[in-house]
């Protein structure tokens, strides 16, 4: 049961170009969306989030776009840097029992070439 889908297991981008990572979800109860970044041998690190009342959130080189009607969100990284090479997880949350438990996608491995 994949409520959160990241259909691209990997993405390769040239340094300086834009990286676009995509995520689709099926559960209309999700009201908060997050992107986590994970380096090898480390745990996921929170990157950026967006509430369902917004359609865009920007933080430096990172922008998340939300299209609620399409149940789709994307993460844009511009300009991409080699240090951005990591696995990116999309996650979605809905309030459950007082704790916002995220449902994760399988991740997209981003490689940024110098």
């Amino acid at each position, binding site marked *: 049961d994949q409520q*959160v889908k990241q259909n691209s297991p990997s993405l390769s981008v040239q340094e300086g170009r834009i990286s676009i990572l995509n995520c689709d979800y099926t559960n209309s109860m999700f009201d*908060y969306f*997050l992107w*986590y970044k994970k380096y090898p*041998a*480390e*745990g*996921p*690190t*929170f990157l950026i*989030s967006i509430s369902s009342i917004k359609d865009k959130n920007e933080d430096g080189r990172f922008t998340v776009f939300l299209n609620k009607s399409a149940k789709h969100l994307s993460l844009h990284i511009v300009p991409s840097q080699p240090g951005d090479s990591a696995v990116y*997880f999309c996650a979605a*949350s809905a309030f*459950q*029992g*007082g*704790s*916002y*438990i*995220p*449902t*994760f*996608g*399988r*991740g997209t491995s981003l490689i940024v070439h110098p």
Partner: protein
Amino acid sequence: EPEVTQTPSHQVTQMGQEVILRCVPISNHLYFYWYRQILGQKVEFLVSFYNNEISEKSEIFDDQFSVERPDGSNFTLKIRSTKLEDSAMYFCASTMDRSYEQYFGPGTRLTVT
């Protein structure tokens, strides 16, 4: 910068043995979580813990699993009788409040042989 720590980084155990995975959450955090990630698959929620009791658990968190906060700093996950399919990375996470943005530890790789 405060961080969540986990020990050991890698645990190898035989099927049927008990294992305890340890986590030290960020000191002023109140909500604690365990997740697992089977190789090549997504990160899956196991359990959340607040005020010394389980607040939520997933279908994965069956009677073989238990969690405990034995003192003011540690948060443990016990698997009573490990199975081959328990082999995975186990991540601990914590938050100060009912926040979406959880802080994850580096994980413990559990290998059941």
